[in-house]
């Protein structure tokens, strides 16, 4: 497979995942804004910080009104991570890698782009927002379904899954990084459960608020939420889950190509060293320090994959 094709599949998947993650973040922010107008600005800020676009937003707009933030996250051409921007980039990458996609997978990506471009042609009104966010998630699910249902399980499939899980791990880690102060068992919070609405946003932004209840019941604690998002291997958006998938896909590439790579070694280290200590040990070492180090390792892994598989010259 061409290095360029591998890169395009990887980035196609990253952008698709980013579009879906952004939809979840907007959804979480919107809930808070609806229910608690006095904290809405802070909540919107944390959404923008998590998405890594706060600085660009402040430069362009300044104050955090719902309408402005939503529009910025959904469709602003000045925001390279807006949903309109990333689905276009996902589609451009899919066009470049057209020969490595099945017709169904390509058509799903193309339909995703056509549908959402039409939906995002004009600013989205508050009362339409839930439907638009649902459509974004559904389109994403259709692309995933087409990829899963029709693609050969070859190197191309591995590269697209690597993109998906690398982006997803990055997203979950960012949420933790932005919210770590809430999760820290600081003086004020010792022994008390954290703010209900706050934990709800955290879990909602990874679509896991219900799953958490099933698993942990009514007991809401910072430790449990952090454990769930970092170490719980059955949660598809946890760091452990994402890293396991990356390890698997890199191992399959290594087997297929008959050559071990530095990227494979890094993924193994990520899974077996960073994600094997109990949550208490992670807290003891400092949650913020842990998450920051994870984000760095994840980014380094992305660069190594790019290098090992010759994405560029």
């Amino acid at each position, binding site marked *: 497979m061409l*290095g360029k*094709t591998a890169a395009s599949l990887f980035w196609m998947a990253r952008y698709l995942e980013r579009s879906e993650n952004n939809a979840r973040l907007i959804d979480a922010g919107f809930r808070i804004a609806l229910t608690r107008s006095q904290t809405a600005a802070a909540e919107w800020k944390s959404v923008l910080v998590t998405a890594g676009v706060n600085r660009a937003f402040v430069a362009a707009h300044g104050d955090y009104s719902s309408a402005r933030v939503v529009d910025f996250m959904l469709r602003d051409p000045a925001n390279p991570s807006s949903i309109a921007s990333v689905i276009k980039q996902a589609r451009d990458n899919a066009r470049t890698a057209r*020969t490595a996609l099945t017709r169904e997978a390509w*058509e799903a990506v*193309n339909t995703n782009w*056509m549908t959402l471009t039409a939906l995002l042609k004009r600013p989205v009104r508050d009362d339409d927002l839930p439907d638009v966010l649902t459509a974004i998630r559904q389109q994403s699910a259709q692309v995933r379904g087409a990829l899963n249902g029709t693609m050969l399980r070859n190197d191309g499939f591995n*590269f697209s899954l690597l993109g998906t899980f690398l982006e997803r791990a990055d997203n979950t880690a960012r949420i933790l990084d932005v919210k770590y102060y809430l999760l820290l068992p600081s003086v004020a919070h010792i022994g008390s459960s954290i703010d209900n609405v706050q934990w709800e946003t955290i879990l909602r932004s990874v679509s896991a608020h219900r799953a958490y209840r099933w698993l942990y019941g009514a007991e809401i604690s910072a430790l449990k939420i952090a454990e769930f998002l970092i170490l719980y291997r059955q949660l598809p958006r946890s760091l452990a889950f994402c890293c396991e998938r990356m390890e698997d896909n890199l191992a399959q590439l290594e087997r297929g190509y008959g050559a071990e790579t530095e990227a494979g070694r890094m993924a193994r280290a990520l899974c077996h060293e960073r994600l094997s200590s109990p949550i208490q040990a992670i807290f003891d070492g400092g949650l913020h320090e842990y998450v920051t180090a994870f984000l760095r390792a994840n980014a380094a892994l992305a660069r190594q994959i790019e290098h090992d598989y*010759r994405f560029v010259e």
Partner: protein
Amino acid sequence: MRSQEGGTRSPYREYCEWFDAEDSQRIQHKTQQAEALFRTTGITFNVYGDADADERLIPFDVVPRIISASEWRRLSRGIEQRVRALNAFLHDIYHRQEILRAGRVPTQLIARNDAFLPMMMGMDPPGGIYTHISGTDIVRTGTHEFYVLEDNARTPSGVSYMLENRETMLQMFPELFAKVAVREVGDYPINLLKSLSACAPPKCGGTPTVAVLTPGIHNSAYYEHSFLADHMGAELVEGHDLRVVDGRVAMRTTQGYRAIDVVYRRVDDDFLDPLNFRPDSMLGVPGIWDVYRDGGITIANAPGTGIADDKALYSYMPDIIEFYTGEKALLPNVPTWRCSEPQHLREVLDRLPELVVKEVHGSGGYGMLVGPAASKKELAAFRAKLEANPGNYIAQPTLSLSTVPIFTKKGLAPRHVDLRPFVLMSPQGITITPGGLTRVAMTRGSLVVNSSQGGGTKDTWVLED
């Protein structure tokens, strides 16, 4: 579809029976369905200089254009003769130039031709093939009269439309294909792969690796490039995926550089090799020319083939065919005035309102004048251009082209069409796919069928005997 006497022309008989029994609303609905299908599949083209609509659909008409088996035999014999002559001509021009020495084609036509590549002099492309892929544009003026409008030997596009149009028709009207025996076109990509593989260069060891070279996703024909690569199972590469490694052109794969043997390039000569051609080009491969010269790669079509597309040269095609085949041209040319010749120019200026004037190197319907449809102002402006640079133009009469029906909201309506059959050439022979791309002028009375000018397409049926 209807003959001059008013009855149904025989190739259309079965189709007409079917059509007359159909509900026109159902067909209307199918037309909309087809459009949605094309959008989802991404069968679009980019229009240069049109920022609003960077990707457009080519209008698709659901009524097929039908050609009988005997008509097709006549056409394909004529096309084959033409392509053979073109290939022989290119070989001659880049070797002994006998046709020039015999005075059958003026030397300055070659010397002044931008597409002539002096570097190809004395070169022997693998298998002696220059025109691996070509397309001949043909119009019909009467029941038994076909004329060749132009030859496309550089990079004829549209073959993906031929294939997708058929695919769409099969999906929308499967019952029609059970009723009418239509010849297959779907094996074009596999024939292309076989034909290209048969032109492997001397240094190829084993099964040839074929790749399609595209300028990238912003090129107007990108859809076609990816379609062909996909259907051949070949890699779709851009210049920056390639480099010369150990004397071979190689592509950067996830496992290192791998040599390729045959490149079906969809970039122009000028952009092929920044070391040997245009230094500012980012589309090509530095050093590919040296590999080509050493028999390390086959470039299809061969560099320098574009001289055959020149519209001034076109007017000499009957002579060229006779010179190399010893036969009269089976398919006639449209009579053509060469404005470079003073006598011709005078005549053209006198009769401008009735003629079609084209740029010698133009394509895509850009920079042409359709006399009968032009305003006084346009005529005056074109007259000035002709006088300033006569050598840049040829002129042709507007033939009384026959029409074929298209489906409109008000029922069937006649429109002008042309036909571009696609021809593959290798040392093993010539393959012409039965059918081709039928382009339709969607506006009533218009003669312009180019997609960049709003023209549409329809499926082309060649009937079984």
